[in-house]
């Protein structure tokens, strides 16, 4: 990342609290995060540490209690940035075919939305099919979600997150519910997609191997209150491979991340045993 370029995503002294008075819960302590344009950042940490909260703040789904969230140098919500999002559940709409599901963002997001009627049967359709082919779902466009397996749905969900060429891609444990082999296959696909399109990616994950394989930076978070405690650069050459994850350099990275998370959990465990 070029240090002089303004960050694409910028959290400045952001805090998020729920409730008020004595019952205030601090979901996210004062947090600062800068992500450069086209960067790939993974957020890891124990559950409840506010990883998903950061994604929701950056997409403007929830407002910050204090501080500022900037995307493309504008306050979040005001910026004309296209955002793609994928969750642990594929959340496809059951009444639409896979292709129609993938094309949904084109129906909503400008400038595609104005052309949707004219191009839905030609250019947009081809675009969806090309993307489906890229994730290994060629020929499944006319199927309905219930006809596909969980892994296939997650691929389709990834296509939906990417169809409108988002500058910002938010992935909230997108591969959490999949088996190891499907997961590794989708890592490679996601890496390809990132290398060719270069969106700015924020990935929330529990899988340290996944974080190391995919990201340029891994931010380790801790809970109560949620905050970022460590920001590790990951500079293995791309494209990365599964074999690489067994090399000593990679193993020592995941070990280090693991230790950081364990130590982040430690005071937590002490509190629980005291109570």
């Amino acid at each position, binding site marked *: 990342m070029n240090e002089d370029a303004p960050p694409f995503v910028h959290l400045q002294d952001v805090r998020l609290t729920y409730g008020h008075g004595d019952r205030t819960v601090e979901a996210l302590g004062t947090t600062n995060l800068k992500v450069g344009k086209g960067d790939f950042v993974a957020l890891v940490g124990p559950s409840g540490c506010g990883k998903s909260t950061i994604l929701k703040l950056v997409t*403007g789904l929830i407002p910050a209690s204090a501080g500022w969230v900037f995307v493309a140098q504008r306050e979040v919500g005001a910026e004309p940035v296209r955002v793609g999002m994928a969750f642990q559940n594929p*959340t496809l709409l059951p*009444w639409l075919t896979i292709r129609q599901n993938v094309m949904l963002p084109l129906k*909503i997001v400008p400038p595609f939305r104005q052309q949707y009627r004219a191009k839905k049967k030609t250019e947009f359709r081809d675009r969806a099919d090309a993307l489906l082919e890229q994730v290994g779902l060629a020929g499944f466009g006319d199927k309905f979600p219930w006809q596909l397996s969980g892994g296939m749905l997650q691929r389709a969900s990834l296509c939906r997150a990417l169809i409108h060429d988002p500058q910002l891609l938010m992935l909230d444990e997108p591969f959490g519910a999949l088996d190891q082999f499907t997961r590794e296959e989708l890592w490679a696909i996601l890496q390809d997609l990132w290398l060719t399109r270069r969106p700015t990616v924020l990935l929330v994950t529990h899988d340290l191997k996944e974080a190391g394989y995919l990201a340029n930076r891994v931010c380790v978070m801790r809970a109560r209150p949620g905050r970022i405690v460590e920001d590790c650069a990951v500079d293995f050459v791309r494209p990365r491979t599964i074999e690489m994850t067994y090399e000593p350099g990679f193993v020592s990275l995941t070990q280090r991340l693991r230790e950081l998370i364990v130590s982040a959990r430690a005071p937590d465990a002490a509190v629980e045993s005291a109570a």
Partner: protein
Amino acid sequence: MTYALRRRLNSAAVIIGFFVVWELACVIFHIKEIVLPRPSQVFETLWLQAPAIWPHTVQTLYTTLVGFALGIISGVLLGVLIGSSRLAYDTGYPLLIGFSSIPKVAVVPIFVLWFGAGTVPAVLTAMIMSLFPIVVNVATGLATTEPELEDVMKALRATKLDILFNVGLPRAMPYFFASLKVSVTLAFVGTVIAETVASNQGIGNLMMIASSSFDVPLVFAGLLVLALLGVGLYAIFSLIEGRVIGWARRKDDAGFA
């Protein structure tokens, strides 16, 4: 013989069997015509009096359909309002439940007072009878939309209307059609109640006159007409339902094809 055909034959046999048992019971137990006419008498009356019954049938069907259509329109609008706004939910629901708890027979005289006897009170009664299930179902369908689905749309900066038309309403469709099938029969009930109380036309009025002259077979002929109309409309809405929301009933159809 295919499975589907056998199923149809079975159900037809059961329906015919019902009338046969009825007929036999009347004959065996010597039940008088004035208490319970035999089905053959009812069909005979229906056949012989058809020219007299027909205009009443048309009137009742017309009244019911107009009332039902108004019920659907206002029901969907109210349902969308209640299902998508917290305030409307909190204030609208108690009002609606209170209103629907009132027996509709009690409301007909008020309608007659406002609009005079005839078609208008019947249309309005059919409408308010069919309204409640539609409102409740549409509101439930909208209010139970998964938050993650909404997050997907909000992340795309979708407007409230976008979310309503692309997620909320399609998701509420199965609920909506379930309520239509209940409501269409209720609409008939509403029409007939109003016709019985305050009208000089319609099946309700026909049955009223027939029973006051102890023409019991004609009363039953009226009931039969109502039942047939109800079944017919129910079938039509089932058919539309199957077309529109096949995705929600996938298990009935072929699987991976």
